[in-house]
């Protein structure tokens, strides 16, 4: 069945941005003091019972629709039983028999990563071992996180490299961001199954990987580890390993001979309800345009370079800014200036689109001036940098400081002639084949015009004047 050198399958958990937990009205965010965001349901008190958070279901359906999954006809929850202190009831309410979504895919460059299933489940509590897991005398349990709504997304084992896995997770995160259903302050967690052709595809599971950077690292490490073992003729058994972020290695957790027996039963406190077709259709109609759809549209409708389109679509806020700006500015110009210049200046100032004070009302006039060639690119760059420090009225500023570009052929010609006149050495160098001399002369024209001469016209006129 498998043919590639490396086979990877991922199981990803994303926390939904609901106000309250998955099965009770206990707040999902707020106090970080341990065991303060709890209620009887969270702590599994006798007499308490789960009631489904309708928003969580809505978010789950949205993700399934965005990733082209088949939506289950009914919502069915199950109890997964195991005794562990992070589960206050000693069972987790999850979806076993019938996941909310099945099949579906996440598009990455060149292929679509097929999904197996998407389902809702509750988060366990957080355990902390003072010191380390091995040396600690006791474990502390914080139930603040317990009961938080999670979406579990499982891929088919069709990922063939750590880089692909990273891209998959990135794209998934983008979709979640665009849908607005995901708590971005919570790191996405992944478990990965890795197997190598050279090892007859024996599966090793790696648990507890946080974020896409660690995912790529963990996978690279594990693949290297397995290959090293094989070279040394050491056996690689089917087992579960944990990714240790501190040492950047995987460590054996337990050997798995068979599936754990969780004794699944249906969750009787949450009645099985039909997922109505009208509900699904309504959510489908209101789905926002997703990143990969935007990127394709930018290229298709506005002839934006595909890479530029992808970069802009990858940032929800940048894409929104672009779509506002392009109502008044040539799209390709807007794309170039946002994708390159704005991002450059943002990065330099360690700001984000949401934290910057610059608005479309500042950018549109700036880009229009560039479009009309009223200012030079250099001037525009400087103005962008100034705007980032503190915003101002661009048009007024340009007027006030006389920054307008000189596009008048006659004026430029005057300066060109003067430059040629005063720089015989450079002219000779140019005639001797040195292209650099031309740039020198352009620079001289700029100096004479205080940087305002239109660079393209300057070059053209210089070349004309210099030709024999």
């Amino acid at each position, binding site marked *: 069945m498998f043919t590639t050198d490396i086979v990877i399958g991922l199981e990803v958990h994303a926390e939904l941005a609901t106000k309250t937990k998955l099965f009770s009205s206990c707040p999902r965010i707020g106090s970080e003091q341990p065991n303060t965001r709890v209620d*009887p349901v969270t*702590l*599994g*008190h*006798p*007499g*308490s*019972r*789960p*009631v*489904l958070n309708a928003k969580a279901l809505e978010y789950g359906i949205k993700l399934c629709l965005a990733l082209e999954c088949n939506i289950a006809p009914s919502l069915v929850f199950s*109890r997964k*039983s195991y*005794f*562990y*202190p992070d589960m*206050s*009831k*000693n*069972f987790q309410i999850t979806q076993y028999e019938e996941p909310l979504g099945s099949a579906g895919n996440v598009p990455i460059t060149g292929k679509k990563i097929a999904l197996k299933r998407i389902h809702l489940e509750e988060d366990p509590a957080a355990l902390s071992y003072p010191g380390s897991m091995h040396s600690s005398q006791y474990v502390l349990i914080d139930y603040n996180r317990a009961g938080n709504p999670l979406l579990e997304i499982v891929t088919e084992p069709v990922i063939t490299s750590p880089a692909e896995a990273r891209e998959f997770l990135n794209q998934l995160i983008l979709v979640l961001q665009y849908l607005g259903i995901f708590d971005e302050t919570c790191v996405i967690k992944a478990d990965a199954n890795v197997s190598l052709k050279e090892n007859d595809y024996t599966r090793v599971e790696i648990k507890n990987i946080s974020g896409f950077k660690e995912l790529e690292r963990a996978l690279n490490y594990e693949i290297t580890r397995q290959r090293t073992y094989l070279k040394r003729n050491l056996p690689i058994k089917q087992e579960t390993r944990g990714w240790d972020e501190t040492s950047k290695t995987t460590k054996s957790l337990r050997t798995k001979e068979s*599936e754990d*027996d969780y*004794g*699944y*039963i*249906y969750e*009787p*406190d*949450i*009645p099985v309800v039909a997922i109505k077709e009208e509900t699904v259709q309504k959510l489908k109609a209101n789905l926002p345009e997703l990143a990969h759809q935007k990127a394709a549209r930018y290229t298709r409708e506005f002839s934006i370079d595909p890479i530029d389109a992808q970069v802009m679509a990858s940032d929800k806020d940048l894409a929104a800014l672009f779509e506002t700006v392009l109502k008044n500015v040539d799209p390709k110009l807007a794309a170039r200036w946002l994708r390159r210049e704005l991002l450059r200046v943002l990065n330099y100032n360690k700001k984000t689109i949401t934290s910057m004070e610059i608005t479309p009302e500042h950018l549109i006039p700036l880009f229009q001036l560039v479009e009309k060639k009223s200012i030079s690119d250099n001037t525009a760059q400087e103005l962008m940098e100034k705007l980032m420090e503190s915003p101002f009225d661009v048009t007024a500023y340009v007027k006030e400081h006389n920054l307008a570009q000189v596009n008048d052929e006659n004026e430029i010609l005057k300066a060109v002639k003067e430059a040629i006149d005063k720089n015989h050495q450079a002219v000779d160098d140019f005639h001797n084949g040195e292209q650099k001399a031309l740039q020198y002369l352009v620079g001289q024209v700029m100096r004479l015009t205080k940087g305002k001469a239109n660079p393209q016209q300057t070059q053209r006129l210089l070349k004309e004047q210099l030709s024999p």
Partner: protein
Amino acid sequence: MTPAEVNETYHAFTVLQEISPTNSGTLDGTTISVKDNILVKDVETTACSRILKGYKPAFDATAVSRLRAAGATIVGKTSMDAFGFGSWNLNPGLDYPIPKNPRFPGKVPGGSSGGAAIAAATLPNHVALAESTGGSIETPACCCGVIGYCPAYGAVSRHGLISYADSLDKIGIMAQAVDQLIPVLNVITGPDSMDGTTLQEPIKLSAPEKLRVGVIKEGMHDVAQEVQEAVQASIKKLGNSCEIVDISLPITMKYGVAAYYLISTSEASTNLARFCGLRYGQHGNPKHKGFNEYFSSIRSEHFNTETKRRILLGTYARMAGYRDAYYVKAQAVRKAIRKEYTEALEKVDVLVSPTLPIVAPDIEEATKLTPAQTYAMDRLTVGPNMAGLPHASIPVSKQPISILATAQTDGALLAFLKKIEAQ
């Protein structure tokens, strides 16, 4: 008698405590006792199990808060088989005394709501709040000679009920007279956002002019002679006021007990997993060798035998390799049972049988029964419980013998009960 006297003589209560109403209403002057698996805020609630000794809930069960808001006074928590596991109330938790039957001395009080039945039988102006999973209201009602009424599944919110089996548990009531039932039902039934399984529609209290009564054929076979005679006599007395027909419920009568015990114990084994010496209840030895040893020892120490038996049975029934043959199969049987009842109740308004296949046993006799023999005593009550239909037990003899009636609506059921009461 006062609650204190009742408790002194019959050990019906786990906690004697008077709790005032929060408001005045239709139940002014009524006293209520609360089965110990139903939460009363700040009052020790243990489901009559030692593992919860000292546990004081942070909230009232919805049924309790509604009763208090309607003017009822709570007098205490009543004894039961631990967690609801039992048909005779001979299995209260370790350290709890076995309650005594006030009407028929020497006989079992019936379970699991034995304490509730005793309170209903002895206290004036009293309605006992109880709970049934497979027969825990009707059986003790029969044993103590009172009326035991179990509304439909979902009619009363289970918010604040310590779960035995969530797909089967129902809160209900016991009283001496039918007229006491309706005011209480009106108060405790109704939707509750804290319980996703509550019914949205109110209970239907209307009834047809002439009731069609279906006598369950299999329910009259294989029962003690006195039981058969008493029930037959009562049905005959209905005379021309009702249309009497024979109804057969073969699947229910043959497989009901097995399906019930598989489903209820499977669910119960998950519901009781939370009792592990953490977060609340009894705590264990701090000098333990790890989580597994800790929780295992505390459960072994504080659960009574029947609790352990049902957890083991239920865990087994849902483990890989057995799940399909037991848990999954039992679900299919339950579906068939529901169908049998639905079809039967299209033909008749009320289905009847005896509540117990024998006259309520002496404590000695009951103790000699094997678990399987005891479970088999539920064969007449598991049907309506599995089908989630309103049903009730009402005495038909000077001996502890009762009729069990099941209907589609509370109205039809109450109308039938009134007829029997009038006899």
